[in-house]
């Protein structure tokens, strides 16, 4: 059987593959589609067969490369995702997302009384206390974040 993807290849841009099934829209939210070049095509495939993970989502965005901060945000919600940079229809580089030890500027602290919500020249910062499952603690007030999807900045 010919393996067929139902979305077209892109010339230049980024392919985020192996997104946990059902989370493509979260990834789009992180990418902030509205901010993209109006001539960029964004393709989404949801609930696609995956050899590794059963089912997966895929997001392709033309003419965009992700900032390290956005990669960290994707690593948080979709730890199995891979990110491929495409140049002239060829995969220039491919890597797994990787959760760093500290996550800066990606999440808002769930503690409303945390100093990071005050008008201070400070970015939110979380220490990764555990990776499986992912447990984050605010580097300032030490509040533990359990549902980080709700707290993406």
């Amino acid at each position, binding site marked *: 059987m010919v393996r067929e993807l139902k979305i077209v290849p892109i010339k230049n841009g980024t392919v985020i593959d192996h997104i946990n099934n059902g989370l493509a829209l979260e990834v789009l939210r992180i990418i902030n589609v509205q901010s993209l070049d109006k001539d960029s095509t964004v393709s989404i495939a949801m609930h696609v067969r995956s050899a590794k993970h059963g089912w997966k989502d895929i997001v392709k965005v033309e003419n965009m490369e992700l900032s390290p901060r956005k990669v960290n945000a994707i690593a948080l919600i979709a730890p199995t995702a891979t990110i491929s940079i495409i140049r002239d229809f060829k995969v220039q580089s491919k890597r797994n997302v990787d959760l760093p030890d500290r996550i800066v500027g990606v999440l808002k602290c769930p503690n409303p009384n*945390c*100093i990071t919500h*005050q008008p*201070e020249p400070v970015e939110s910062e979380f220490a990764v206390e555990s990776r499986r499952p992912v447990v984050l603690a605010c580097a300032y007030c030490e509040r533990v974040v359990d549902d980080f999807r709700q707290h993406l900045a």
Partner: protein
Amino acid sequence: MGGASVAPRMSLRGRDVISIRDLSREEIEEILAAGRRMIPYAEGSKVSRPLADQIVAMAFFEPSTRTRLSFESAVQRLGGSCITIADMSATSMRKGESLSDTIHMLSGYADAIVIRHPNEGSARLAARVSAKPVLNAGDGAGQHPTQTLLDLATMQEAFGTLAGLRVVLLGDLRFGRTVHSLAYALALFGADLVLTSPPTLGLPEELKAPLEHLGAKVTTEPDIARAVADADVLYVTRIQKERFPDEAEYRKVAGSYRIDASVLAHAKPRLIVMHPLPRAGEIAAEVDATPHAAYFRQAFLAVPVRMALLDAVLGEPKRKG
């Protein structure tokens, strides 16, 4: 410098102390030992001036009586001097200056900064901004490491050890993070914990597991009389009115957690009752005259313990031996 070298021999010099977790067990032990040696200096019967010519800024952005006064007393007993922000309305923060800017400025005026601030995480932010050591004197409902140190010092003075003590933590165990820090430190030192609280104000499960991981035996006993029966320490905290949906509910719970002579009638003779103060009716005045009352001693020990910490962070480098 006059008097003995009483500073702990570890390297706390120049360090920030924001959370009790910033200190290792060995460092806590050394501060407690130095705190014991500081008692005659705190009482004024001996004199030592390791902080002579040093200035400590007291940056108190919310009201505090005993924490600020005991820190000021500690600095002055060590021969240092204080500059103090005690009233936020008199600072530029009222004009919209950020905490970061205020701390930046203070770190140019002083050799160390003691901070109390209503927002959690403020002391950590101050430590990042300041070029000088920052000591956290309470950040909102967050950390208050010197309170934990003096609580441990009070128990250690009464019993000679912390290991194996049976400590009842009574009151708001859900939101009171000072109690969380104390529970962590007690578990670190091998004490057993008995948790007594209204059902809605129990210790969060995610905090219980790490205590047990440290080897502490943690039990829940909602009945005060049963909890007190075989306890060594009864640590009472305020039950905060704002945690309750209505006044009647608050009164019911607060009333059921009042410590008086009848509650202590079946306690061990050596049981000590502690409270971070100020109390708001949780402990009846009649307890003051019993040998169980340790809260005023606890308030006094704030001075030698804070002296030990200030000396460790700021004191002159000590010669070997």
